[in-house]
């Protein structure tokens, strides 16, 4: 009986593969649903692949590395044509990614990269990820240019920073970028910098303490918009006007940040886009057409948004767009 059953299953699988022969199958091993950003990221990739007419085998790892290892091995045994991969941690991928290489399935790395030694040891077709240091630089550039615009370029201004989770790539990268650019503006002085763990609640509690410990705070740079949104509540509770008394710059650019900018509570947000779908599909089309890509990490095109627009936020002269004009396009 058991044998018969497995025979039928095997037969069905053969038929199934035969039926979908010709169609390209893509395996996507995603971390899980940890945040709005991640949800938007998954939705974008799934929608774009579907629109391109390819088969997608999606695996949600629920934040566990062993689930991802299992998913990758399943992809190999299913014989998918391409693998998209975002690792929940940066270490411990050598073995399974080498198995992917041996199966000669082209690998595309998304968002979170494995550690450098792994990247050196394995083959991959393409890699896409955010540039956290540049995001940090942009936060600082925008601030410096805005301060100049409102005529405070000669004033001594006190800056506080809400850092992300200590040790996270996004936090160390953004902090590095912020400090690098602020070094050129001696009038912008960092008086406090603490972790708010990327959450609203901690951003709020830490800002509350900043406001008690420092009488004069002019600028708040938050490593993500959630912490900035939390901090806004604390600033209001201290009897100050967020966006006016304290200039607030965040990062990520979700819809909630646009709302806050339009309401005048926040001044700017630097984009860290989760919308990987379009360029992942573009890369896949190239690979399918037989074009080779190299191992360099490709950063997505990203913007920045504020209330008025027109402020330069990067060293290469990019200018911000008006949040009110763009909020309609925001999906997340």
């Amino acid at each position, binding site marked *: 009986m058991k044998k018969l059953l497995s025979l039928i299953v095997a037969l069905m699988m053969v038929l199934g593969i035969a039926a979908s022969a010709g169609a390209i199958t893509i395996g996507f091993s995603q971390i899980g649903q940890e*945040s709005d950003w991640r949800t938007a990221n998954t939705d974008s990739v799934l929608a774009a692949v579907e629109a391109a007419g390819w088969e997608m085998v999606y695996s949600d790892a629920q934040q566990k590395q062993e689930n991802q290892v299992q998913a990758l091995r399943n992809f190999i045994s299913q014989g998918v044509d391409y693998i998209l991969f975002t690792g929940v941690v940066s270490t411990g991928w050598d073995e399974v990614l080498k198995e992917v290489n041996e199966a000669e399935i082209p690998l595309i790395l998304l968002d979170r990269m494995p550690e450098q030694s792994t990247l050196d040891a394995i083959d991959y077709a393409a890699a896409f990820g955010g540039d956290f240091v540049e995001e940090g630089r942009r936060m600082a550039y925008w601030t410096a240019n805005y301060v100049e615009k409102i005529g405070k370029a000669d004033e001594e201004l006190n800056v506080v920073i809400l850092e992300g989770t200590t040790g996270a790539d996004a936090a160390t990268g953004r902090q590095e970028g912020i400090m690098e650019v602020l070094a050129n503006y001696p009038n912008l002085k960092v008086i406090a910098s*603490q972790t708010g*763990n990327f*959450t609203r*609640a901690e951003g*709020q509690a830490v800002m509350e303490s900043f406001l008690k410990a420092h009488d004069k705070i002019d600028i708040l740079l938050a490593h993500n918009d959630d912490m900035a949104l939390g901090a806004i509540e604390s600033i209001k*509770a201290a009897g100050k006007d967020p966006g006016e008394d304290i200039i607030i710059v965040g990062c990520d650019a979700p819809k909630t940040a646009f709302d806050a900018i339009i309401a005048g509570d926040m001044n700017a947000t630097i984009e860290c886009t989760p919308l990987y779908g379009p360029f992942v599909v573009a890369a896949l089309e190239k690979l399918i057409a037989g074009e080779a890509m190299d191992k360099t990490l490709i950063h997505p095109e990203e913007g920045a948004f504020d209330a008025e627009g027109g402020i330069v936020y990067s060293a290469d002269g990019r200018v911000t767009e008006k949040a009110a004009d763009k909020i309609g396009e925001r999906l997340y």
Partner: protein
Amino acid sequence: MKKAIASGNFLRSKLFWAIVAELLILLVGFILRPDFLSIQLRTLSDGTTVLFGTPVDILNRASEITIIAMGMTLVIALGGTDISVGALVAVSGAIALKFLRWDVLVYNTPGDYTVQPFYLVILLPLLACTLMGLFNGALIGKLKIQPIIATLILMVGGRGIAQIVTDGKQFTTQYTPFKFIGNGSILGLPLPIIITLVVVLGVMLFVRRTSFGMFVESVGINPNASRVSGLKSGTIILIAYVLTGFLSGISGLIYASRISSNDSNNAGLGYEMDAILAVVIGGTSMTGGKFSLTGTVVGSLIIRTITTLVLYFGVVSEAIMAFKALIIAVVIVLQSEPVRNAISRRRDRIRTQMGGEARA
């Protein structure tokens, strides 16, 4: 004479040393920067006047843990523990936001509105958390499953439930009455402090004015003997977990209201450990038996004071956890029985020596 013995006992009690520790931490802050303890009146943009200062922050931010720790004290006094409270905080917030926003596709901008009636927004999260407490209590009190295993189920499952309720999304609201719970104030005092006061007094009255407190201690010291002597220990255990679930729900509403949103991943994260720590610092033993609700309040304040101190003096982010652990280690060592006995023996010796000299 009797009074002297009583005060001697108090000096040997963990509660006394918890209060000493709290005062010492505040003193350190005060010496480093005298304005650490300053309180002033501030007028907000909407015209309300509020108390503004670090001591207010400590009381305010300790609310979530203090409220949960009231229930946790009884649970621990019964020889148990509840590690699902953090997840219940997330469930409470998720349900509240679900009912505020209901159909996000229709009401896709957060505004000053609630889709479902406000009383449901408040009552349903509390009801859900109470039922989850009932689930814990039934497993532990009636089916005699070990507390840490029984509450592990909801610790893991609770956040999953929270995710399902809101479809994995983070909703935001601007509904004024809901925001008032965590951010509002009455007579200058933040509302969470007032809610905490009501909860603490309520639990104290319930425990000390009825025989429930005595039953808890009796079951905690020896469940079998209590049962033989006619106490329904299973029911008493059940009530303690139901209460803890309900209180986690209140805490969850405060958390969600403060950030005007639900956060199924981070809401209440690690609260179970903070609540257990507050209870233990407050002088209730993990082995069960006698408990001190006052001690728990002091324990919770100690934890929050340390956090506030760290933020106020800008300890670098990388060192925060180690720094907190260090202070807590000192507090716990100070409270340990050998150290307490050594200190009070020394004090007794000095007193008898002085007494001898006076006589001579």
